[in-house]
């Protein structure tokens, strides 16, 4: 493979990357003195760095030049390196081709392992949003990672879901810090484990999903049942 050699007109490169003629020799050879001189770029007016401010008082000279950009008041003792630009754009995990909104999934781990569940959508965080529906098998609106799910070929035709189904729903509420003055005061009101908004949203979503499930023959009892492996059943032989 030939290394790319910078092409200079009127000159050749000797082995070792050394040009045959010097810069001045090339100048003479190409008769650059005969060619039209390069136009000098017109000077661009520099941006204003100072601004004139009127000053009160007889003996103060009337006006002052104030710099527009103030010099920093503080310089660090040691030079610190600037961090490199991070131009990474976060994308949600690639969704498996077998998973789509309305697919029935089998949960593989967690409290609800083995349960069959309806996939609602993929959230911006990459996790799947899933619901039992709660009425059918007790699985609430829940986030699941794709790796912990087997996608079955069964699909439910889902209507449009409410807009509020996002990752923000699952954000944990910050616990009150120990420094709070109420430390010695009894916590009389216990916060309920599941917020009222979540319960309301669950009902809203189930009201959309459950009728869609009931339309399909036997799908409700299918979602009620759990996935199990019995004797002689092997997952590598199964078609889901």
């Amino acid at each position, binding site marked *: 493979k030939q290394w790319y050699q910078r092409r200079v007109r009127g000159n050749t490169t000797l082995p070792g990357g050394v040009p045959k003629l010097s810069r001045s020799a090339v100048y003479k050879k190409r008769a650059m003195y005969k060619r039209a001189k390069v136009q000098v770029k017109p000077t661009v007016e520099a941006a204003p760095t100072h601004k004139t401010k009127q000053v009160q008082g007889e003996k103060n000279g009337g006006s002052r030049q104030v710099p527009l950009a103030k010099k920093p008041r503080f310089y660090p003792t040691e030079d610190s390196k600037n961090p490199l630009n991070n131009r990474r754009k976060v994308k949600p995990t690639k969704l*498996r081709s*077998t998973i789509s909104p309305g697919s029935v999934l089998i949960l*593989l*781990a967690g409290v609800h*392992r*083995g349960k069959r569940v309806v996939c609602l959508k993929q959230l911006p965080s990459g996790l799947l949003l899933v619901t039992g529906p709660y009425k059918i098998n007790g699985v609430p609106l829940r986030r699941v990672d*794709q*790796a*912990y*799910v*087997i*996608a079955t070929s069964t699909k439910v035709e889902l209507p449009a879901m409410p807009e509020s189904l996002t990752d923000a729903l699952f954000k944990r509420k910050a616990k009150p810090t120990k420094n709070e003055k109420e430390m010695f005061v009894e916590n009389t009101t216990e916060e309920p484990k599941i917020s009222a908004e979540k319960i309301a949203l669950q009902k809203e979503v189930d009201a959309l999903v459950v009728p869609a499930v009931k339309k399909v023959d036997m799908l409700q009892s299918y979602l009620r049942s*759990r*996935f*199990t*492996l019995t004797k*002689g059943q*092997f*997952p*590598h*032989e199964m078609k*889901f």
Partner: protein
Amino acid sequence: SSGINAEYGGYKRGLRNQHSSISLLKIEGVDTKGDTEFYHGKRVAYIYRGQKARKNKVTKRETKLRVIWGKIRRAHGSSGLVRASFRTNLPPKAIGATVRVMLYPSRV
């Protein structure tokens, strides 16, 4: 229901040397190299009993059961055996014992 069983067959070895960091597992119902493809990457758990009850960090319950987690790396040979590596090497007393193969991380 959350997994399938495998028998722990011993360490990866030649006749006179053994490499205890890699364990060989015989998964139930898997007889050919092609069948093992489903199990690549799947998590594996060797579950055993201790004498004293310990608190499980995840479930927060006191239990005598203990786990060594691992993962199935690749096939071993052409008859369906599989190589697995565990977080800490499996103890030799476990040879012949049952190891549970989970169905996750799933690629189906």
